[in-house]
């Protein structure tokens, strides 16, 4: 990579003290996968940060690198074929990529926890949920079986599973999808982490249950003042819970913004296209706007701006020069805190 993103220049939406006190900061992260057909560049220089109590939504389609980034943070990337050639992942100022395995293991699970999309396959089907919840306490805190069970019940009550006392001995398949996702959340919460990474936590759930689970997650976050990284493809889910959004495309962040701003005035043609292409519940539209073309092939990311073959605004410069993520300002030059766009023509996009 020749061009470095300049996200560091973008002022943070909330000043969370000195820079190294950031709960989590990802700096210029690169991830590639070595496959039979070549090197797939999944993440190409991602920068973002989360503070305690803050929710960062990472929005992107499949292949955008949003989940790969999260896996890199958690240290659960398959390596090989995955490789992190460059970048830093700072947890409270310490680079997790250079830590020893032991140090890292301590942070993972205790300080940073992850919630996956598919709760059923993330839970062990032959162990009762109570046992699996209690395991955390037995392993990490050395509690007895009985104490661990009591803790498990407490956790299940905290995530509002009805009749927790009776259900603690049930097995994962005896729970509904929504309840299983609650159990996953309970597991993530068990050791009271500072940061939760939720990878499409509600995608597999029905809308009525989705709302319940998102609400729960939000309440718990406020209660424990945790940082939350919410990875999703759903612009709707993001609108409800996030404080700030990072939109990813082809392994890069193409736009960052506080949540309300993004929907009102997108500063990147990709974000604008996404917003225009989803049908609205409250409006019966005419033909949908469709972003032309296909998501990029990570083996052959287009030169220049990766979005250029699909972009209505693309010009020659877009095909040759990778746009850096630059701060976005009002027309009169006044700052728009927390906003950034990786588009050569962001001015035209946001003000045009």
């Amino acid at each position, binding site marked *: 990579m020749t061009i470095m993103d300049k996200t560091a220049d973008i002022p943070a939406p909330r000043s969370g003290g000195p820079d190294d006190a950031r709960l989590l900061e990802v700096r210029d992260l690169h991830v590639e996968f070595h496959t039979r057909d070549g090197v797939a560049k999944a993440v190409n220089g991602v920068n973002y940060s989360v503070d305690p109590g803050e929710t960062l939504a990472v929005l992107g*389609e*499949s292949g955008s690198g949003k989940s790969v980034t999260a896996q890199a943070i958690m240290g659960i990337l398959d390596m090989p074929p995955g490789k992190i050639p460059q970048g830093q992942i700072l947890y409270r100022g310490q680079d997790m990529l250079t830590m020893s395995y032991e140090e890292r293991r301590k942070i993972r699970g205790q300080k940073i926890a992850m919630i996956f999309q598919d709760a059923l396959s993330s839970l062990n089907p032959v162990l009762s949920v109570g046992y699996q919840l209690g395991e955390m306490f037995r392993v990490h805190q050395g509690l007895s079986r009985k104490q661990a069970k009591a803790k498990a019940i407490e956790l299940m009550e905290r995530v509002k599973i*009805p009749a927790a006392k009776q259900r603690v001995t049930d097995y994962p398949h005896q729970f*509904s*999808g*929504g*309840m299983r996702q609650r159990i996953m959340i309970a597991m993530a919460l068990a050791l009271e982490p500072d940061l939760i990474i939720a990878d499409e936590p509600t995608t597999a759930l*029905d*809308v*009525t*249950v*989705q*709302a*319940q689970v*998102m*609400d729960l997650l939000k309440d718990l976050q406020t209660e424990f003042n945790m940082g939350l990284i919410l990875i999703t*493809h*759903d*612009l*709707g*889910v*993001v*609108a*409800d819970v996030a404080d700030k959004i990072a939109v990813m495309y082809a392994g890069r962040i193409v736009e960052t913004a506080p*949540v*309300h701003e993004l*929907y009102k005035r997108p500063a990147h043609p990709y974000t604008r*296209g*996404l*917003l225009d*292409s*989803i*049908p*609205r*519940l*409250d*409006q*019966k*539209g005419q*033909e*949908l*706007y*469709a*972003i*032309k073309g*296909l*998501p990029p092939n990570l083996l052959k990311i287009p030169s220049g701006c990766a979005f250029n073959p*699909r972009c209505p605004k693309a010009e020659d410069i877009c095909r040759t020069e990778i746009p850096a993520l630059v701060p976005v300002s009002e027309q009169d030059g006044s700052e728009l805190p927390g906003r950034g766009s990786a588009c050569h023509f962001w001015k035209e996009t946001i003000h045009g």
Partner: protein
Amino acid sequence: MAELDKNDGSMDATPNVTEVVAVDATDETAAVAAIEAPVERGEPILQVRNLVKHFPLSQGILFKRQVGAVKAVDGVSFDLYQGETLGIVGESGCGKSTVAKLLMTLETATAGEVFYKGQDITKLSGRALKAVRRNIQMVFQDPYTSLNPRMTVGDIIGEPFDIHPEVAPKGDRRARVQELLDVVGLNPEYINRYPHQFSGGQRQRIGIARGLALNPEIIICDEPVSALDVSVQAQVINLMEKLQDEFNLSYVFIAHDLSIVRHISDRVGVMYLGKMAEIGTDTEIYDHPTHPYTQALLSAVPVPDPEARERGERIILTGDVPSPANPPSGCRFRTRCWKAQDKCSTELPLLAVPERFKGSESAAAHESACHFAEEKDVVGAAS
């Protein structure tokens, strides 16, 4: 509906269930003739009556005995009119995919009828059934599993012609396949490629081309875009709308995404636990829902606009969908309903225009299976 205009081709005025004109076909040839007959735009083409599908639950290893049944579909009736799109929404387990399979005669109905141009397709066989199969096609949810990975695109799209050779003579087939690829927006040169060489959106286009091959009249779409990326969904939806106009198709569009259903549908049916809770035009359902379940469902949809979100009222349902093997008595929604009273557990509400709205011009006057139906704006429409 204020703007009732029968000539504009909108289906707003048509009732949801009309009388079935069953055609008595004495033999197979007569049945095939009835199936081949054209249907006027706006006339019912598919009429579903009290459709029931129970999957038996059996116990025992050697001597299997039935211990119960999963009531996947439990008495569903609706009409599909020529040229319209009927959306069917509901959460997982509500039976909407089973309805699709029943309409495709991929499952045998436990009871009830599906009339296609007056012929009950649940009782057809042989040549007549084959003729029906040609006219009702399906687009599947998962573009990754619905295409045989060991066949070329040409073989996949051309397979319908192998099965129904009368549609296209052998010499024409390659040209027809290429034409179909072109129609769905794929490069006709891709004919010899294999499915794994395409992305999800492209594969779904291949699936659509296969569905179009036999010039069907009805296409049943079972979650056709839910496996696709947001930016690709819009392309596929637009393609489907274009094809509907071009080939005069009627769609049954089954999905869980209410926004997409509203966008594409003329009329919408909401299913809950094997039953239709509410059915009406898209405006009736989305802007004037009267069934509490529809209201809860709509209010739960995340709107990609933080400010519009704050306009509408939010109803968060408690609990989960009960098991279809053991549904609640009376109204099936009563266990999660905030309006439920004793009547709801004893009396099954029928799908009909609620008494209080009868004869009303209001858009709330549409069929809703609730004892206490009343209007509520949950979407926050800027009306």
